[in-house]
């Protein structure tokens, strides 16, 4: 970890990063519109993400929740654990989900219930809670 006092506040650099992000958003939206209108079926970014999640990327929805908590829910009190440790916990849990193949197990458990509950509602909520506890930003 670098000493905080060596860090500088460079608004110009931050501006450049902002421009890169905006450019990336615009490219993604334009690409997706092109993909929706072209002749190849089911190749939009949405379809690609949908296929991936159906093939067992429970983790992707977990990250949705983690990132939602990180970006949109800030923390007023000082951090209890260091950001690096928090990041490590978030990634370690994702690795555990893959290693223990949680998604099919959840699917079978849920198929016994008569209500049609999506597995991803659990992973999104789990991600959000993990992000809320370990990976929030200061306000």
């Amino acid at each position, binding site marked *: 970890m*670098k000493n*905080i006092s*060596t*860090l*500088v*506040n*460079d608004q110009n*650099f*931050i501006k450049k*990063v*902002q421009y*890169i*992000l905006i450019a*990336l958003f615009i490219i*993604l939206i334009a*690409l997706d519109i092109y*993909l929706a209108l*072209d*002749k*190849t079926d*089911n*190749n*939009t*970014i*949405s*379809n*690609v*993400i*949908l*296929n*991936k*999640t159906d093939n067992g990327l429970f983790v992707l*929805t977990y990250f*949705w929740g983690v*990132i*939602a908590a*990180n*970006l*949109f*829910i*800030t923390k007023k009190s000082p951090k209890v654990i260091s950001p690096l440790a928090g990041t490590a916990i978030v990634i370690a849990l994702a690795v555990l989900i893959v290693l223990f193949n949680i998604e099919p197990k959840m699917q079978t458990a849920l198929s016994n219930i008569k209500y*049609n509950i*999506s597995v*991803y*509602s659990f992973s*999104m909520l789990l991600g959000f809670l993990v992000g809320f506890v370990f990976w929030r*930003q200061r*306000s």
Partner: protein
Amino acid sequence: MLSVQTVEHIVIAIIAFLVLFNVYLNFNTIKNDTINVILKNWAYNKYFFLTFIWGVLGGHFFLGSHQPIFGSNWWLPVVLVIVIILLLIIIGKRVDRAFILKRRYQLLLLVSGVLYGHFFWSQRHIPEILFPWE
């Protein structure tokens, strides 16, 4: 023509770029320049539509009630979400530079976005949506 596989590679490349770029931004000497900090600052100031979009996309991709509330009018939720986002952008444009949105409103935006994606505009409502020209 881009095949499904090419698009997959593009999506993976963009995610990998964002992750590596963010690691670099985290460990360089400039503070508050990571993607997380920039997006947080945007969402808490003028661009709180981002919170709503994140919720809508979560509900759109990953959740979905059995039937969409608007039935077979597939275009209605698309138009409606664009109108809502434009309204949020217009409201956001009017706020002050020093404005900070309250955290509870962020949560409200996120949850209402998820509910919108779940009940009105999901990819998982019905397996096939037929477009009028098909």
